[in-house]
């Protein structure tokens, strides 16, 4: 299964047969004071800087999210998408829970973007899937529905089936769907990690779709978060996640190592290249 997304000049393929695709998560004002203040003032330079820094750190795709109290997403999302497109040449992941904001951002986008996200909730399926179809985008499906985010594996799998079915009914091919299994913190939910890992395995086996994961949630409320995020990301990749929404600079070395171990980096080209870059910088 190959999911293809593109900018106006570059295509990125997400699949099992090549390296894990890293989606840079840092253009998101939640918890980032500097970016939040700038966006509130209508200043998009900080977003440009983040786009550039993440691309230099090895991001394959840049996630763009401007959702925050005091920011009008319908105005800001297309502006920031435009600015990031002017700054870097890799594909974007347009991220909002507001379908109106998604639509205006899709209008200005050049290429085939990833949309983040549709959920299994009825209002989301009805509104977001037609948008994805009409703009020819790919979309991330979150396994939550009108009852919230499930804690167990079975319900996650059921919602993934539902999203895939509804997308196909809408005329969106399965390769344009990427499922996100949504992890809770293992600090508060001891079985959260295993529930997600089992869900990835099962959804992959039953539906064959590409799988993504935001790998930072797992460590909420715990010390040494980076350590946990890295371990969890490597495990997720080993059971079938093909792209990750992450802080690229922090997690890339681990993912390159995992890719090499899993035979997804022939002749260790990427792993050694990253090593040489690090040596040069030291």
């Amino acid at each position, binding site marked *: 299964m190959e999911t293809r997304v593109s900018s106006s000049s570059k295509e990125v393929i997400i699949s099992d047969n090549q390296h894990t695709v890293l989606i840079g998560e840092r253009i998101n004002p939640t*918890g980032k004071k500097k970016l939040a203040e700038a966006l509130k003032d209508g200043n998009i330079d900080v977003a440009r800087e983040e786009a550039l820094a993440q691309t230099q750190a090895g991001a394959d795709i840049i996630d763009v999210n401007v959702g925050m109290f005091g920011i009008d997403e319908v105005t800001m999302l297309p502006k920031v998408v435009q600015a990031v497109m002017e700054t870097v040449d890799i594909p974007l992941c347009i991220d909002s*829970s507001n379908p109106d904001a998604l639509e205006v951002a899709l209008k200005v986008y050049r290429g085939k973007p990833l949309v983040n996200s549709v959920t299994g909730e009825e209002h989301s399926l009805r509104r977001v899937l037609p948008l994805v179809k009409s703009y020819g985008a790919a979309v991330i499906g979150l396994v939550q529905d009108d009852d919230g985010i499930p804690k167990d594996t079975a319900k996650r799998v059921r919602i993934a089936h539902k999203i895939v079915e509804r997308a196909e009914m809408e005329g969106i091919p399965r390769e344009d769907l990427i499922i996100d299994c949504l992890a809770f913190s293992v*600090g508060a939910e001891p079985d959260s990690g295993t529930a997600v890992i089992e869900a990835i395995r099962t959804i992959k086996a039953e539906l064959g779709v590409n799988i993504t994961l935001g790998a930072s949630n797992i460590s909420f*409320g*715990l010390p040494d978060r980076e350590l946990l995020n890295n371990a969890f990301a490597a495990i997720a990749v080993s059971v079938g996640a093909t792209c990750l929404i992450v802080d690229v600079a922090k997690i890339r070395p681990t993912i390159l190592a995992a890719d090499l171990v899993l035979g997804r980096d022939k002749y260790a080209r990427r792993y050694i290249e990253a090593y040489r870059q690090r040596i040069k910088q030291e």
Partner: protein
Amino acid sequence: MNKDLVSMIADLNEQEALKIVKDRLNAGEDPLRIMEDARKGLEIVGERFASNEYFIPDLVYSGEIMKLITELVKPKLTREEETRKSGKIVFGTVKGDIHDIGKNIVAFMLDVNGFEVIDLGVDVPEQKFVEKIKESGASIVGLSGFLTLAFDSMKQTIKAIEDAGLRDRVKVMIGGGQISEEIRKYTGADAYGRDAMAGVTLAKKWTGIN
């Protein structure tokens, strides 16, 4: 000996803590004094969490230990003794939001500081808050939310409390990762808290306890 139970709970030593509780019960000690020591132990756990010495799993574990202790002590308590608390607080994550970690931490801290917390869970509709305030006679309401859309739900919840004629009877505090003074004004809450201890401080101030 009394100090031991406090420190064993504070240090999350489950086996020792349970053993001390059993010994003290067998020796015929007043169960209320045992519960008071246990609560003091949890208070230290809360302080250690607030100072980043303890983490969320430590809190969860201390809650488990407390549950086991309560099970041992409960048969010896009378109904009246069980409910000796300093104030009632109706608490929940507002409609449309399902984040519960922060809410649970604040509820835990309020509980160990002697408040009776009526936790309504997550994605709680406005009317449920209104009903529980009426039913319990609580004087404090805590609204939690992490998502941006939660701020609208908070505003609507406070409006619903007002429409029900209950606004003068309760103080409302809000909390969640992104809450600020700007959001407090928007929602019409009385105060907001940056962390769990801030919630406890507010509740104590409002109920006149120091």
